[in-house]
């Protein structure tokens, strides 16, 4: 496979990642959000496998496999169970209306890319052009974290942010050492469990998943 085709494919995956990040920003339904998250994981796994194939870095195959298992199968399954248990398949309310959110998102993409540009110029890898997009999707997920008011979409936003970071790592430095990656994966898994437990408690305490209720906890 020629280097230029590989670069093009990585660019394609990067823009798919961005597209999915935007789709998540625009999505009202929790169930579709989870599907989108799974798709994002799949794109990520494919991209990692591609980079592994092009650069002959075998440890990247493992991390692609790990991504596949964790982010395409396991986490979506956990989230599915979570929303089944909590019975929250309804539409998500957003704090800001969706076109505005997306407009701000476009601004974030511009900023993300410009900030990443000097770093991408330093990098020598085939995938350096995508660093900006990775950063942009991190910012977009952050944005989703802010604009959602229910707990489950926030969890998904957090996980999507991690996806962006992972993509940045793959594109800038051909991935982190496997040990670090395993640790991060474990962290994410544990984080999701904690979030799950947290949401259960949230509902028990306030009979709602609206995180605005947490504001009541502050001391006056």
């Amino acid at each position, binding site marked *: 496979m020629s280097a230029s*085709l590989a670069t*093009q*494919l990585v*660019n*394609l995956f*990067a*823009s*798919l990642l*961005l*597209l999915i990040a*935007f789709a998540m920003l*625009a999505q009202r339904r929790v169930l579709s959000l989870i599907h989108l998250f799974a798709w994002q994981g799949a794109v990520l796994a494919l991209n990692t496998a591609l980079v592994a194939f092009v650069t002959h870095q075998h440890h990247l195959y493992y991390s692609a496999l790990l991504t596949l298992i964790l982010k395409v199968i396991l986490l979506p399954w956990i989230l599915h169970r979570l929303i089944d248990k909590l019975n929250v398949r309804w539409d998500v309310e957003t704090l800001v*209306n*969706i*076109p505005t959110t*997306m*407009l701000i*998102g*476009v601004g974030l*993409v*511009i900023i993300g*890319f410009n900030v990443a540009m000097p770093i991408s110029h330093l990098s020598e890898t085939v995938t350096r*052009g*995508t660093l*900006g*997009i990775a950063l942009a999707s991190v910012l977009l997920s952050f944005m989703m974290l802010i604009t959602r008011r229910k707990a489950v979409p926030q969890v998904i936003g957090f996980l999507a942010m991690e996806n962006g970071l992972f993509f940045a790592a793959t594109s800038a430095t051909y991935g982190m050492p496997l040990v670090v990656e395993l640790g991060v994966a474990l962290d994410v898994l544990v984080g999701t469990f904690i979030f799950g437990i947290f949401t259960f408690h949230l509902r028990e305490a306030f009979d709602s998943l609206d995180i605005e209720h947490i504001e009541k906890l502050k001391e006056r």
Partner: protein
Amino acid sequence: MNAAIAIQLGQAVLVVLLAPLFAGWVNQCRAWLQNRRGPGMLQPYRVLRKLFHKDAVLAHRASFLFRATPYIRFGCMVLAAYIIPTLASGLPISPAADVIALVGIFALGRVFMALAAMDIGTAFGTMGARREMLVAFLAEPALLMVFFTPALISQSTSLSTIVHTLAYQPFVIHPGLAFAAIAFLMVLLAENARLPIDNPATHLELTMIHEALVLEYSARHLALMDWASNLKLLAYATMGLALFAPWGIARTIDGPSLWLALACLPVKLAVAGAALALLETLSAKLRIFRAPEFLAMAFLLAVLGLLTHVLLEGAA
């Protein structure tokens, strides 16, 4: 030169004659997907024939605008059929209008249709006009933005040059086009009164846009309006094919490439029509005030496609 003009004319005539068939194919696919038998692919022709043979009924207050509009709108769509490279690119009339002018020509047809709907002064007509313009004022910029990504890639707004660049240059993956394609699909659905925005099968007044606009038309006027709508759908489909699947469109005017183009076209259109029907079957109609949101998303997606292109390929 004479051959080119003949092919130009032939392409236009072919598109004008094929348009009802394509609409019939989409409807037939939809019927199959919904486990119905459907009226058959030739039904639009039968409808046109029936309408042409009837006497026209006009409202008392109809002005010259109302009577001229079916012809003008039909003329706009035929002109579009001349310009869009359906069979071959680089035909003699195609330099007369680039993609921006093409959007303008569609806008001309739409403005006249909206004005004609307001002409009689009924509640439905004006409501339809308002809704049509509501869809249009977002769909039109979205369509322009969709065109701008391939225009930047090929450094040209002429559809012929775009087809040349995308189909005959060495193959390059353009990620920006993926965004543009999705946005284009959304615009296509909205502009042709298809499902998430408008329901072509309904006659329930409160949910309709397109039907409210042509409510006062009858007989030959209605036939022309319907034919123009079929043409518009086919024009969008062929535009989409030219932008996102340009393979097979003849570059030079010679026998083999034209036969290839003639063979590719029905296959591509059949697939596109079936996909359109599938998409429509899977989606549910949106409330009218979700429509601007839908279109705003199409618009932003198209802008994002443009940005992605500038980001990933512009600097290189």
